[in-house]
């Protein structure tokens, strides 16, 4: 398991404590009741803190699985830091 993936598992466990750690990589809005419009903001906030990235909430509708989240975080971590006016 990559470092990013293992840290992301921890983020999911914090945001969605009812999901067993073993099931986190299969998590999606369909399998996790708390993954609603508010729950996913909580998840994004935890991920922002963990990886020191600014989450683009406009992308949230597309990030509807653990794998999609992982790919997004990998891109953000690899990308050069940009100024983000207003944040």
């Amino acid at each position: 398991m990559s470092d990013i993936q293992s840290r992301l598992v921890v983020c999911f466990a914090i945001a969605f404590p009812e999901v067993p750690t073993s099931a986190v990589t299969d998590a999606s809005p369909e399998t996790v009741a708390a993954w609603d419009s508010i729950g996913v903001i909580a998840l994004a906030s935890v991920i922002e803190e963990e990886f020191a990235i600014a989450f683009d909430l406009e992308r949230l509708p597309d990030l509807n699985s653990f794998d999609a989240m992982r790919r997004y975080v990998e891109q953000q971590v690899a990308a050069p830091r940009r100024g983000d006016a207003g944040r």
Partner: protein
Amino acid sequence: MRFAEALKILQSAPTDGAPFKVLLGCGFTPIHVQTFLGAHIQRRVRDRRVRVIAGAYGDAIGTFDRQDVDQFAACALVLEWADLDARLGFRRLGGWGPGKLADILRGAEAQVARLTELLERVPTHIPLAVSLPTLRPAPVFFQTGWEAGSAEFELRRCVVPLSSWAVGRPNVHIVSPYAIDQRSAVSARLDFKNELVAGISYTQSHSATVGEALANLLQPVSPKKGLITDLDGTLWRGIVGDVGVDGVFWDLDNQSQLHGLYQQLLVSLAEEGVLIAVASRNNPAVVGEAFARSDMVLRKDLVFPMEVHWNKKSDSVRRILDAWNVGAEAVVFVDDSPMELAEVQTAYPEMECLPFPEGPGDALALFYRLRDLFGRDRIGAEDALRRESLRSAAPLRASSNATEQGGEANTDSLLREAEGAVAFDFRTAGTTPRSLELVNKTNQFNLNGRRYSDADWHGVTSDAGRFVVSVSYKDKFGPLGTIAVIGGELAGTSLLVDLWVMSCRAFARRVEHRSVATLFERFGVDTITFDYAPTTRNEPLQKFFTAVLGTSPTAPMSVSRDGFFAHCPPLYHSVTVDE
């Protein structure tokens, strides 16, 4: 606090804990403020399960109309300009032109009037914390950003009636804008992007600040009770033993104003009821001369006790704690010497040990920190009595300690001559703020360590089947004020007491014995059952029951009338009971 930590704190709440419900009025997506507010409260009510319930999105004010506030333990409101008129925010396109300004101001004024009317419905036993607008309004004003024009002033004036209304209500607390300004830069408050995408107005860090501020007002940390200060390099500049009494300074002329300001702050704390003591490795005669200087700001009579000798600082601190009869966790120690601070901190890990800094910036931070540590909601009559009552109690405590250690027992003669008078008030005990304050801050003589929110207390004191009595004491040395609270219910021929706290100021006067004797007499019962629970701090209460029972107390325990009076020492007080 990080957001992930806040979530974990909320998740760690005991699943079987009684709910502690907080109503949050917030016009934007509240997830962050809600989480931080809940986490900070959860930390302070560890045996409860905190749930922060937010009102409808976009209607912070209406939250207090639609929700039944009576079912909440506390209420919080995060008010922003957009709540007063949506055009002051960014999610509506109602117009920012000069022709709209008058209408915006009229609307804002009307909304504040409506809000005040709704908040008036919050019962006085439910605490309410309000954060007034912290974001800059949308660019509706036609002046440059450098100028505060008339419309901006008018807008600010709109919320003044809300503040004025809050002033007269003991359960309503307004977040200090200075506290927010100090912790959250204005430019880092608005999360403009997420405001547009998801209606999240506050950045995470600003949410953390506002959430913590609201929690601090709804569930304030118990204020510290005493401050122990060093002298050389702390209360004054210079080493008095080296430079002499006239060589130490605390004024502007001698570049030592920080020390004068520190003394001024200590005087203010002392007048608010904070205990002030001195611990200094010094020559007592020289220190006495320094305190006799006419320009000394901190008068000697405000200090008790004064530990000045060449022994270790931790020895002085131990003797001061003994004289005050308070735990180390309720005390702050201030010294300029890192070595002395480390020695005291090692001896008393739970004590707040603060360095007296060299520079003005750090000194200012220390002054505000001390205000935070000793800050209280109200200053009662008992606060002013504390120091003198401890001073007068010193001979009694010394006598009591001597008796325990098998020495000369002159306690009885001291008590006989003290002219002690104990007053029991069954009539107003439940409604005076001092009762709940005493219940929630007393550790040593506390039956079970149970704490009560304002709402819990309202439930306890308004239950017709229960009694609550407050106990006051005075003697020839002066009054101690209200020093104990007892509560419970009559069940057949037995009395159940599930609440009993007594201030450490009343120790060694046999007020606890008098209290039990009075309960037996007033209720005419043969047995009193105490809902006792040992805590890490209630050893004085355990010692009392051990003496009364002849054995260590268990939970729960019953005390029979005959057994109690067989072990009860002579009581010399006069007694009054107000029904």
